[in-house]
């Protein structure tokens, strides 16, 4: 494991060895494609392999693994990561890799078109030539490809796949067929998970964690979140991707208004917790939120952990990683906590649907007892640490 105390040279040597191991695994899987699911773990943001690695290296390693699915076939478990990069990445290498990976999907769904179109928007002003010929390859005109070209190729491939799936149907029937085929898995794919009463982890390990809020006041996890349902997002002010943290806080501001319109303001707390507590001082947090129309207050706080960040990461299974103290990779993540401060639902990776979040909040506020009656168990695709 590469740590700060390890000399730079040793750390780089270890990191190179890790990359070589992953590349060897990709080669091995090319010979045995049925093992492709073994590669999915290298897409997880919090994977050890990304610790203390430059953000650019993380993009390259994840991207190179992801694009391999274009040839090997895309495992269902990898789909949320692919859609995430198309939805919110502004890095040409990552988007190109995701677009390529999607073409390895055995049963393509028409409804991913909006995500591909969003990818084209995200690329405006950030596209460049990329190459997946080798891990270290640099894209050039003539030999490389561009993210735009890859996304457009995937859009054409989708059209072709849809026509092949229903050759004698009219256009409307084609779409209906595709939607029906996908809807049972759509929540998993969209990163939405709900946890029944019995599946929620007690917060005992985090109740004592102390936060400093946007006004410099100290409040513990228990004081902030116990006694009422809460909405919790994670972000940091140095995030350079406008489709992630900046949009998260903007959306939180809109959610704040929607909660009020829906008569759900009272009794629901909102918290935005920074991944970067050393840098994100109270004044920085406050200024960042206000600039994005989120109005901090007693029940709507921006928080930084004074200590216990590791415990927080474990409790939420946060999708974040660091190069020393700076975030090098993270996902969009929103959590709903019940009145006992336990995670009741999560919305990960993709920009969450405001109505869906509101409905979940309403469910928690209005009928907490209903949770015990729900019989249908929706198993989250990333079920780690919540049982």
């Amino acid at each position, binding site marked *: 494991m590469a740590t*700060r105390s390890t*000399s*730079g040279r040793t*750390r780089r040597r270890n990191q190179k060895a890790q990359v070589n191991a992953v590349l060897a695994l990709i080669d091995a899987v090319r010979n045995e494609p049925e093992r492709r699911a073994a590669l999915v773990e290298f897409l997880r943001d919090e994977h050890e392999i990304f610790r*203390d*690695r*430059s*953000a*650019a*290296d993380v*993009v*390259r390693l994840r991207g190179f693994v992801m694009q391999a699915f274009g040839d090997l076939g895309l495992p269902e478990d990898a789909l949320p990561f692919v859609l995430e990069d198309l939805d919110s990445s502004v890095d*040409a*290498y990552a988007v190109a890799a995701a677009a390529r990976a999607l073409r390895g999907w055995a049963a393509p769904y028409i409804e991913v078109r909006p995500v591909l179109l969003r990818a084209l928007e995200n690329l*405006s*002003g*950030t*596209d*460049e*030539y990329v190459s997946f010929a080798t891990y270290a390859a*640099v*894209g*050039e*005109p003539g030999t490389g490809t*561009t993210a*735009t070209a890859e996304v457009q190729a995937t859009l054409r491939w989708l059209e072709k796949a849809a026509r092949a799936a229903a050759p004698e149907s009219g256009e409307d029937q084609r779409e209906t067929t595709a939607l029906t085929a996908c809807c049972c898995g759509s929540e998993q794919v969209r990163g939405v998970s709900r946890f029944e009463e019995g599946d929620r982890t007690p917060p005992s390990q985090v109740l004592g964690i102390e936060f400093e809020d946007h006004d*410099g006041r100290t409040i513990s996890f228990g004081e902030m979140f116990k006694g009422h349902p809460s909405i919790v997002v994670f972000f940091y002010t*140095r995030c350079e991707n406008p489709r992630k943290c900046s949009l998260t806080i903007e959306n939180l501001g809109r959610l704040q208004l929607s909660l009020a319109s829906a008569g759900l303001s009272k009794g629901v707390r909102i918290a935005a917790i920074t991944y*970067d507590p*050393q*840098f994100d*001082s*109270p*004044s*920085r947090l406050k200024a960042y939120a206000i600039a994005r129309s989120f109005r901090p207050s007693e029940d709507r706080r921006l928080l930084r952990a004074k200590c216990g960040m590791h415990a927080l990461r474990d409790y939420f299974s946060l999708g974040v990683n660091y*190069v*020393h*103290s*700076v*975030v*090098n990779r993270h996902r969009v993540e929103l959590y709903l906590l019940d009145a006992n401060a336990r995670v009741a639902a999560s919305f990960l990776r993709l920009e969450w649907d405001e109505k869906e979040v509101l409905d979940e909040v309403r469910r928690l506020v209005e009928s907490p007892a209903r949770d015990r009656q729900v019989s249908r168990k929706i198993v989250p695709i990333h079920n780690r640490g919540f049982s």
Partner: protein
Amino acid sequence: MKPAAYRKKIEKEIQTAAKAMKKQAAAFRKKSASAAQRTRALQAVGQLQEPRDLALAMQVATNRKERERLRVAAVAQLAPLLERDAKALDRVIDLLADPKEAVSVRAAALTMLKAAAFYVGSFASRRPKYIAALRSAATSEDPMLRQRALGVLARERDAPTLDKLEDGLRDPTKAVVSPEKALQLLSYDSKRDVHDVLVKTIQNPPTPEAKQQALRNLAAEGKSKRILERVLGDKSEPTENRIVAMAGVQNLAPDAFSDIAGDIVADPSEDESVRAAGLVAATTFGGEQAHTEKLRKGAAHLQKRARQPAARRAATRYLGKSTK
């Protein structure tokens, strides 16, 4: 002057300027004129507007048989053409990309393209080609062109470029720019693992400028606060380094800065420039927490006793804000 007379005066000036522009454009079009005359015409014309003149400018810019200075002047006229014609944009990008092109022409193309990135609507679709062209220019033997291209690429956070700069710091035989320049360009990417290089540069600087730049770069990383505080507190460090370290501490720990700055400002044996810098930072960024008794006392002392006028001014400004 009455408004009507003023308007008449301005209108006459515009007409005179328009006539002069037409004359210069005609001088450029005159193929029998010397290259020097045509170059002077382009330099005096302001901005060519007529489509035929712009087309001619493109022809001249891309023709290797023309004199270099004329070509450079022609490239500088292409702005309106790039805005309306994506193929023209491609041709200028090709000029930048071509390693066999004259350095001055490539440099002129780079200047034009940097501006075009802001105002040309179709530029986004050409970005892949532009980045590739910049990477080609970044390998030029000419240090000016190379550094300019690297600068643009670094600001674009181009990973291969930043890798190259980092390699040059770790192994000086691979350096493509000076260490301080490499560090400055690497600072555009705060998510790169170069902490060990920065610390090594501070402990064993290849140049004084490199050490100063390394201190600046450290201001992005939370765990570097201790290193920066040490440099700030070390009176044997050059003043410039201590001021850079102070800015870094203010950036990393704005809420605790007043206490740190207070000790320095209140110390009459401290360097005046460093004390003044502390007051400037407290005045500009400090907010309400910056109004401490220690800082006020230190500022009052500096206002009365400082030899440097700038230090006295910094103290006056701080005290002025502090009493409001």
